[in-house]
């Protein structure tokens, strides 16, 4: 279909069951190239399962996930993920960590070095390139993980509550970092979070999942200029709206 090119990711009639337990039911949504999408939903509604399906760690019970018009395939498509606990490889330096996924794809050394330098510069990690993750603070380590993900120029970057336990200021700071890199690299990002404020701060669109069995109940467009002011009335109104939507279901 000609409209393939408009959508980076298409999810159609996605179902996932574990035995007789229905977790996801008839999920449908599309993600445009370069969009920043946040996925929110009540606790335990299946967000992690949703993510696992997108990363191809799990097989759907039925339905399809298309990337660039073709079924999602981790071998063909560049999928990058960032989890809640920083998962930088402790036995590699920052430089090697950033370049890790690139080396897996067998890119030429020159290119890996160039991309690593670029990402380090973008994320403010240039001074730490030769240090080990254990020498870094948690937030810096998480930056390495995020940098590693972006360095791949992924088709889809998936982030699952990456700032969960950090204090608010560090959180805001890292959120700004991600937005900055996202804009530079025009990546497509899917960000899962429990924190509504974070979702409204980051997203172009927010997908609200219903209770189990989860489907996409609503698609809220966040049409606020960046950088966003969390105290502005429009921001607060949106946040309030999304919070209510979740409470209802």
């Amino acid at each position, binding site marked *: 279909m000609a409209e393939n090119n408009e959508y980076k990711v298409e999810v159609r009639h996605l179902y996932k069951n574990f035995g007789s337990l229905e977790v996801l039911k008839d999920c449908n949504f599309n993600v445009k190239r370069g969009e920043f999408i946040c996925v929110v939903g*009540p*606790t335990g509604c299946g967000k992690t399962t949703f993510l696992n399906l997108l990363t191809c760690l799990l097989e759907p019970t039925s339905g399809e996930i298309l990337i660039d018009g073709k079924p999602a395939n981790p071998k063909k498509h560049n999928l990058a993920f960032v989890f809640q606990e920083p998962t930088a490889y402790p036995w590699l330096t920052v430089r090697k960590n950033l370049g890790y996924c690139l080396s897996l794809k067998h890119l030429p050394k020159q290119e890996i070095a160039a991309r690593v330098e670029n990402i380090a510069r973008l994320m403010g990690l240039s001074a730490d390139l030769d240090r080990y993750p254990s020498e*870094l*603070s*948690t*937030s*810096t380590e998480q930056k390495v993980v995020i940098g590693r993900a972006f360095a791949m120029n992924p088709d889809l970057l998936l982030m699952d*509550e990456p700032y*969960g*336990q*950090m*204090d*608010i*200021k*560090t959180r805001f*700071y890292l959120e700004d970092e991600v937005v900055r890199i996202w804009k530079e690299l025009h990546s497509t990002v899917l960000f899962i*979070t*429990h*924190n*509504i404020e974070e979702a409204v701060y980051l997203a172009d669109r927010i997908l609200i999942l219903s209770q189990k069995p989860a489907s996409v109940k609503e698609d809220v467009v966040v049409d606020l200029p960046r950088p966003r002011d*969390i*105290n502005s009335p429009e921001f*607060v109104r949106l*946040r*309030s709206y999304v919070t209510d939507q*979740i409470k209802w279901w």
Partner: protein
Amino acid sequence: MADRFKLSVKNLSKAFVTKKDDTLVIDDISMDVRENEFLVILGPGQCGKTVLLNMVAGLLKPTLGEIYMDGEKVSGLDKRVRMVFQKLALLPWLTVSKNVQIGMKYAKVPKEQRERVAQHYIDLVGLQGFERSYPHQLSGGMKQRVGIARAYASAPEVLLMDEPFGQLDAQTRYSMEDEILKIWDKDKRTILFVTNNIEEAVYLADRIVLLSKRPAKVKDVFDLTGLPRPRDNLSEEFLRIRQEIADQMDLDLGQ
């Protein structure tokens, strides 16, 4: 006429000495806590909040400074002070009920009374029916509630809480915040609550003591007693205070 404070901390400092170097973690902190107030200690991650709390609890000895309770100097463990730990530390080999009874057990409270009091607090935190369960069978939020019941059941005069909701997702966190306020309302004690989450601090506190990044000093004290409860975290007033505090709080990127 200054009312006597329940708890006072004067010129408290703590340094850790290791083979490599000395690290000053707490730098000359003083503060007063009124009886039955909900005091929140707020600071960026890793600033030393837990160290401060551990000193008040008597688990760590200060390098310098003193702690006073009801006007008298205290040092070491004191049965008037109990803590809800950050990493919970529910004893995995004990049932919920036995965990909750633990303080009373060492205080040599007779068995029947122990069980009764434990049941009261288990009911209060909404876990009736789970008395015989083991910690590993409970969810994160439920474990937190056991920790709270356990601390309360040993009848402390001062209750310390070390980022008790840090590991929970945002929504469970909100409901636990309501929960702790409800419990505090029914059973008033002096509470010292530590967090790195500004929104949580503004939602819960009578007063907020803002700490700087390491080495921790008192940056500012905010009095929120004027803000009526229950608080609305989306109201203008709330957001204004929150922004004011956020502007003051240090950004600690650790290095």
